[in-house]
Structure formats: structure tokens, C-alpha cells
């Protein structure tokens, strides 16, 4: 069986041919099987985020190939990348990136707006994830009124609403205290049990030493190595 994510000599160079050229990734080759939980560790500025946004179809590589499932995505035009992003990935960002003045429900539904779904289907999906993350009672509240942990769960709910195969989490515990970090990993463990593939970037030892992690990679100056 082919791997779910297959990267072959991926490179990403920002501001190419300019004075401030940055080589964020150089010739990264790796693959992730379906159902795996993979961690990228490394100091900040090492290229973790760049790799995550490449895998998550947010930008295109400068060179190299990337396959997500059966689809070659490294040369896709932006609108099709957005479609892949919408259908395949759920994102948990370092800064949550919620719209604070909107209700929990509205925030969760946002990724579904561009898709042509029936309203009933949208709401039943929302109900399912809200229940799963224990947010049902809070769905009408504004995000700004919630506690940090609840906001964290809203962000996860939003990542799950489009029923993604792959969850991408960029430093998910960076702003959390140890209790919340623990809670987050419990949720992620559940997701993994449900068959989701998870790709993290983190430099928090609590995360990369957690039992749910299958494989670890370390990044340094845009180069990926297998971590010991």
C-alpha cells in the first residue's frame, strides 16, 4: 500500500533571486502511512512550519514532488490546493486562529461554507464534533467568552468538522499549561484511535515523548533527519 503522504526532494525557497532569499526546506524526502502519528521536532526557525504548510497544501514547493493519497499536489493551482486542504486536512494552529467575536458554532462551521452541503448535514456534523469535544452547551457563546481550554477544543472541533484524514498541528501546546496539554493529547489519542493520521510540529518534550507518537523526525536548517 502506498503511503498517505509521500514527499520526494521537497524544497522551499522564499524570495528567490532576491537579497533576502531564505532556503526554508532543502530536499526533504519522507513519507507517512495512514493512521500514523508523526512528530517533527526542532528549534524554531528550523523549517518545521514550512514543511507543515507544504504538506497541508497551503503553499507550493519550489521543487520536488508531493503526493497526498493518490493526488500529485506539488503543481496544482491555488483553488485546487484549497479544495485538497478543505477535504483532506484539519489544522490546529499554534495561535488557535479563531474568530473571537463569532459564536462557537459559527467558528466550527466556517470550513464547510464553501462546500456544497445541505444545511441539515452541516448541523448534524457540527453536533457530532461538539458532542465529541464536550462543547454542546457552549455552542451559542462567543469564543471570546470561553476559557483557554475550551477555546483549544473549539479549534480542534473546527479541524474535525470536515472529517479530514490528516490532522496537522503546529506547536499545539506552545501556549498551554501542563493540564491543558495533557487534555489535548488525550483528545489526539482518541483521534488516532479513530484512524486519523496526525502530523505534529513541536519542541515540547511532553508531546514528542508521548506514547501516541509512532515516529519522530528532527529538523535542522531545513534538513530533515530521523530522530533517535
Amino acid at each position, binding site marked *: 500500500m502506498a503511503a498517505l503522504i509521500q514527499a520526494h526532494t521537497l524544497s522551499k525557497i522564499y524570495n528567490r533571486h532576491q537579497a533576502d532569499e531564505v532556503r526554508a526546506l532543502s530536499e526533504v524526502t519522507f513519507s507517512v502511512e495512514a493512521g500514523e502519528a508523526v512528530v517533527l521536532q526542532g528549534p524554531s526557525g528550523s523549517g518545521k512550519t514550512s514543511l507543515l504548510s507544504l504538506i497541508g497544501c497551503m503553499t507550493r514547493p519550489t521543487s520536488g514532488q508531493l503526493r497526498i493519497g493518490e493526488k500529485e499536489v506539488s503543481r*496544482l*493551482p491555488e*483553488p485546487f490546493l484549497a479544495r485538497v486542504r478543505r477535504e483532506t486536512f484539519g489544522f490546529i494552529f499554534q495561535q488557535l486562529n479563531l474568530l473571537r467575536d463569532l459564536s462557537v458554532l459559527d467558528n466550527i462551521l466556517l470550513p464547510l461554507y464553501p462546500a456544497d452541503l445541505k444545511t441539515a448535514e452541516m448541523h448534524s456534523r457540527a453536533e457530532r464534533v461538539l458532542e465529541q469535544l464536550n462543547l454542546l452547551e457552549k455552542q451559542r457563546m462567543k469564543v471570546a467568552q470561553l476559557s483557554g481550554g475550551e477555546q483549544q477544543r473549539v479549534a480542534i472541533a473546527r479541524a474535525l468538522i470536515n472529517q479530514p484524514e490528516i490532522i496537522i498541528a503546529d506547536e499545539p501546546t506552545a501556549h498551554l499549561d501542563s493540564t491543558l496539554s495533557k487534555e489535548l493529547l488525550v483528545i489526539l489519542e482518541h483521534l488516532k484511535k479513530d484512524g486519523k493520521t496526525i502530523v505534529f510540529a513541536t519542541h515540547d518534550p511532553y508531546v514528542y515523548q508521548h506514547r501516541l507518537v509512532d515516529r519522530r523526525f528532527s529538523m535542522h536548517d531545513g534538513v530533515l533527519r530521523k530522530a533517535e
Partner: protein
Amino acid sequence: MLLNPGILALLLGCSLAFAMLLYAAWLGLRILSRWDPQSSSEAQLQLERRTYLVSTLTNYAFSFEILSGLLFIFTLEDIHSLFIGAMCATGTLNANQIGWLVLLIKIVLFFTAAIWVHFNRLDQRTEDTPLVRPKYLGLLLLTPLVGLDLLLQYSYFTGLQPEIITSCCGSLFTLGSDSVASELAGLPVEPTMLTFFLAAGIFLILLVLCLSSKLALFRYLLFVASLGLFFVSLAAIVSFISLYIYQMPTHHCPFDMLQANYGFIGYPLYGGLFIGCLYGLLPGLAQLLPKTLSLHIEIEKTERRWLLRAFFAIVIFLLIVAGPILLGPFILLSY
């Protein structure tokens, strides 16, 4: 020059549309010269993003150009009272020589702009965007046409002198004078009617054939039939449809039916004809596009919708035409 609000709106809108198109065409030129779908460079990404700007600009500009046709006719109707002898838009159009030319360009623009917009939408749905080059070449050709439209409109409106005594539809579309218009009006009713319904029949049959078969030939034939139907219908409107609408044996004006006295019936009538013919043209034209797989899939998906739209529009058009002929008290054929 007449400072009429409608004229100001037309000139302002057309200038803005032209300015937007000029910018779009310039962007299009840059896209054309540097487009490289194989590259994943930052520059190519910027170009891809520019295509959105180009299509947004052109969508707005072309939508306005199409609306401006309506506003143009509306304005002609409104200012006809300023011209001695003008009883409807025909009189205003006759006030100087450019009027009819402006109308012609507006009709051409309606079709070309609508075709461009539809093909652009097709292209944007494909992953490999095979139409980028033909699309932007087309844009470069359309932009001067919009400029010409603006220029002619400007000189038409500035050239309008309210004192001019113009000939109106009464005198333009009467039998016996020596012009294209009077020849149209003078077409014998019975054969014209026959030709018209024949053309409409052929169009509808081809439409059904296209819906049931994938043969390219039918689409080409439908293209020809749409063109034919369009011109035959215009002739038929002057020759006999107008007579039935006005219930008068000598009133051949193609514009009076847009006025409130006739319940604005002209708008659905012309709307049905224009939209029907447009969607009849599209499937044939789509056959001429490069045959890439992605495009082929998209065409198959959308074509059915085009054909159905053409069908309904023409049916509405025919119903409006046939209504007064079959149900009205006015009988022309016995004259």
C-alpha cells in the same frame, strides 16, 4: 451635449468599464508573456493570482456592458421628447448617424462578452487551465471594442442636437422608402412567418438532438441555427411580430414594445431571444476549444445546463411571439 442623468450614467459606467478592462488587458498581456504552468516559482504563483483579478475585473466590466445596452435603450426612450418628430427610440437613434452603430456594437458586445465570461468560468474549473492563451488573446481583442463603444457613444451623445427634426419609426419602417429598415418592414408576412417558425423549429430540434447525443456535428449545426434564428427573428420582429404586439397593421417599430404602454413586453421578448441564441452558440464554440481531458470533462458537465437554458429562453420567446398571433383579436394574414 445633453446632461441627462441616464447619459451621464452611461458615459460614466462605460468609461469605468473600459478603464477596468484596460487594466485587465494589461495584466492579461503580462500573464500571456510569462505564463508557464510547469513552473512552481513565486512569479507563476503571482500570475495565477492575477488571473483572479483579471476575471473579477472583466466580469464586472462585461456585466455592466450588458446592462448598459438596456440603459442605452431606456435613455433613448426617455430623451425622444427632445427631438421634434421622434416618437420613440428609433427617432432618437436617427438623430445622428452614429446611433445605430452604437446599438450594433452593443449587440456584438453582448454576445462576445458573454461567451468570454462563460469560457473563462470553464477554464477556471480545470486544473491545467488550457484556455489561458486564447482567453487573454480574446480579452485583448474585446478591449478595443469596448473602447470603440465608449467613443461612439460619446460622440453620439455630444452630437445630439435637440432641434434636429428626425424621422421616427413611422417614417423609417414604412413600406416604400428605400432603406434596409423599410425592406425589412416590407417583407411579405406569410413567407416571413413561415421562415421564422421554420428556423425556430430547426433550432429546437437540433437542441433536442444535442441533448440526446454527443455528436459534435449537431453542436456545429446548432451554432449555425442560433445565428440564423437570431437574424431571422430580428427581421420577423420588424416584419410581423411588432404588428401583432401593437395590433396595428402598419406599426413596425422594434422599440415601442419596450415602453410601458405595451406592458414592457419587449424585455422578455428580446431577453428570451438573446439568451436563447447565446446558449445555442456556446456548445458549438466549445467544440472548437483545445481537446484536453480536463476541459472535456468540464464541458460535458456544463453543456447540458447551457442547452436547457437555451431551450427555456427560446420557448419563452416563442410563447410571447405566438401568444398574440394565436389568441389576439388582430388578424394580419387576411390583409
